[in-house]
C-alpha cells in the first residue's frame, strides 16, 4: 500500500497554487497505482472553503487550524509534519519546490531517515518505486534519482502544464488537536514577512517578460514593465542586469537566480548564456527578441524576432493593446 501525504503550503492564509497542483498530480499518480491513497496536511488558521472545487480526487486533509502556523517556523513545522506523517502512516511525502520546502524537507529527511528527492520535474514511476527526473549541471544534462529508503520525501518543481484530474472530489477535513507548542523553542523566529504586493514572483508567474543587458539601462525596463502589466505577467532579469543594479536580485533568473516555469517567457536583449538558460528550461514557449541574429538564445527559442528592442518593443506593445481591445 502506497500512502501519499501532500503538504499544502499557505502564505498569508492562501494555499499556494503550486501545492494544489502537486495534490492533483499526486492524485494522478495514485490513480496509476491502484493500491494507494492520498492525504494532505494544511498548517495555519485559514478558510478551507478556498479549496472547494480546486482539489481533485479523494482523501483526507489534516488541518492544524492554529494562528501560530501562519508564519513558517522550521521547528514547529518539522514536528507537525513528522507527527502527522506517523499518524497517517504515509510512505511518501510531497512538497511543492519552494523556499519553505527547501528549508524544511532536508531536516525532515534526516529526522525521519527518509530519502529526499529535490526539485523533481517528472515522476519516474515505471517500477514500484517512484523516482524522480530533473535537470542537473545547469540544465546541460538530465538525471534520474532513486530513493534508497522506504520512506520518501519529494519536492516537485512547478511546470506549466496542468494536471487533468477530474473534480468530482471526495475530500474530508480533519482538524488536528492543538499542537501545544510553546514559544520557548520558537527560534529561528520569523518576526514578520513583507510581501511585494505590486507584483508576482518570477518563480510563480505564468508570463515573464525578462530583460538582459540589451535593454540598455534601468529606464529601459519601463517598457518591459508595461508589457508585463498588459499581459498579467511579471518582469524578470538576467544576471548582468542585476549586477549592474538595474533590477533587484529577486527578479534574477538563471544559475545564481531563480528557476522559472512560465507558459510564455519573453527574453528581451538576453543573449542566452548557459547560466541563464539553466533557469528557463521549463518555460513552455520561449520568445526571443535580440538584435544579434547569432545570439545563442535563438537556438533554444520557439519564436524569434531579430531587431532593435527600442523599435520592436513599442510595436509589440501596440500589437498587444490592439489584441486586448478587440477581445
Amino acid at each position, binding site marked *: 500500500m502506497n500512502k501519499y501525504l501532500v503538504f499544502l503550503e499557505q*502564505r498569508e492564509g492562501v494555499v499556494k*497554487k503550486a501545492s494544489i497542483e502537486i495534490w492533483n498530480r499526486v492524485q494522478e499518480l495514485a490513480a496509476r497505482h491502484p493500491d494507494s491513497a492520498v492525504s494532505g496536511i494544511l498548517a495555519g488558521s485559514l478558510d478551507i472553503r478556498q479549496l472547494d472545487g480546486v482539489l481533485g480526487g479523494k482523501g483526507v486533509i489534516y488541518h492544524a487550524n492554529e494562528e501560530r502556523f501562519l508564519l513558517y517556523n*522550521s521547528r514547529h513545522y518539522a514536528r507537525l509534519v513528522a507527527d502527522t506523517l506517523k499518524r497517517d502512516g504515509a510512505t511518501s511525502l510531497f512538497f511543492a519546490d519552494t523556499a519553505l520546502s*527547501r*528549508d524544511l524537507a*532536508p*531536516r525532515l529527511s*534526516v529526522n525521519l531517515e527518509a530519502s*529526499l528527492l529535490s*526539485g523533481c520535474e517528472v515522476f519516474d514511476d515505471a517500477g514500484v518505486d517512484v523516482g524522480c527526473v530533473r535537470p*542537473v549541471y*545547469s*540544465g*546541460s544534462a*538530465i538525471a*534520474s*534519482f*532513486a*530513493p534508497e529508503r522506504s520512506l520518501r520525501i519529494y519536492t516537485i518543481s512547478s511546470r*506549466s502544464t496542468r494536471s487533468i484530474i477530474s473534480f468530482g472530489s471526495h475530500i474530508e477535513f480533519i482538524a488536528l488537536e492543538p499542537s501545544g507548542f510553546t514559544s520557548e523553542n520558537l527560534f*529561528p523566529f*520569523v*518576526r514578520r*514577512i*513583507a*510581501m*511585494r504586493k*505590486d*507584483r*508576482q*514572483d518570477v518563480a*510563480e*508567474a*505564468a508570463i515573464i517578460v525578462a530583460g538582459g543587458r540589451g535593454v540598455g539601462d534601468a529606464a529601459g525596463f519601463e517598457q518591459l514593465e508595461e508589457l508585463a*502589466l498588459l*499581459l*498579467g*505577467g511579471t518582469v524578470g532579469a538576467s544576471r548582468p542586469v542585476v549586477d549592474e543594479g538595474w533590477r533587484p536580485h529577486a527578479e534574477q533568473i538563471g*544559475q*545564481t537566480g531563480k*528557476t522559472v516555469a512560465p507558459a510564455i517567457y519573453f527574453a528581451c536583449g538576453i543573449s542566452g548564456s548557459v547560466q541563464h538558460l539553466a533557469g528557463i528550461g521549463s518555460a513552455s*514557449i*520561449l*520568445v526571443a527578441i535580440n538584435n544579434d541574429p547569432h545570439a545563442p538564445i*535563438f537556438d*533554444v527559442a*520557439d*519564436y*524569434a*524576432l*531579430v531587431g532593435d528592442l527600442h523599435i*520592436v518593443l513599442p*510595436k*509589440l506593445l*501596440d*500589437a*498587444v493593446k*490592439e*489584441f*486586448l481591445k478587440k477581445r
Partner: protein
Amino acid sequence: MNIAVCLCQVPDTASVIGFVNGTRDLSRVNWVMNPFDEYALEEAVRLKERFAGSVVTLFSIAPGAAKEMLRKALAMGADQAVLISGTEVSDPFQTARVLSRAILDFYRDALPDLVFCGKHSTDFQSAQVPLMLAEMLGIESVSSIVKLSATAEGLQVEREIEGGIEYLDVRYPALFSAEKGLNVPRKTTIKGVMEARKKPIDLLQVTIDDRAFVSMTNVKPLERKKVCRFVSEPGELIRLLIDECAVFMSSGETNGGTGEPR
C-alpha cells in the same frame, strides 16, 4: 567567535562534462569554488573582522584540486582549513554526515558559534546539505539568507521567499546558507595570497557507515536545441502566440497583481 565555513567544488559552467552509458565523465572538468560558497565565506570573514578573536575554519570534502580552492579561500581571509578524506560520499545525506562528524571532531564535540554554507551547489542544486548538517549538529538554521546583522547576543537575518522577504531572529549557535545578494565577495590580494601559504590545511580522516539515502541511476545530456520560428513583425508574433497559447487569451485581466498564474 568560532565560525565554520563549508566549501565545495563544482564544474566551471564552461567545462565539458562527458556522458557515457548513463554515467558522467568528469575528467575534462575545470573545478571551481561553488559560487554560493563565496558568499558564505565572505560573510564569515566580515564577521571575523567585526568580532575580535574570531577564527574562520574551512571544511571541505572535495578531492584532488580542493587544496587550490582552499588556498584561495584562505587568501580571502579564512584562518585555517580542514580537508576531509576517508569516505567517498555519493549523496547529500552522506556529505552532511561526513561534514558533521568533521566539525564535531575538529571542535572536540563543542559546536562552532556559526556555520556558513552556500545556498546550494550549482551542479546539482539540491540545497539539502546545509539543512541536513544543521539537523545533525542540532542547531538552528535559516536557508538562503540575503542579509545578516549580528550582535554578541543574537542575529537578525533576512531570507528571500516567493514574492517577499522573511525577517528572522536567530540565536547562537546557528547555521546559515548564503543566497546571492548577501554580500559582494572580495577579490584576493597578493598580500592575502602570500599569507595564505603560511596558513594550515589540516587533513582529517572521517569514516562513516551510513548508506546513501538517494542514488543517481541515470544521467544523460539534455538536447535543448529547438527549431526556432523567425518572425519579422511584432503583430505576427502576437497572432502566433494567441493561436498557440491559452494563457495568452486570458492575459490582461489580472493587472499583474494576483500573484498566481491561472
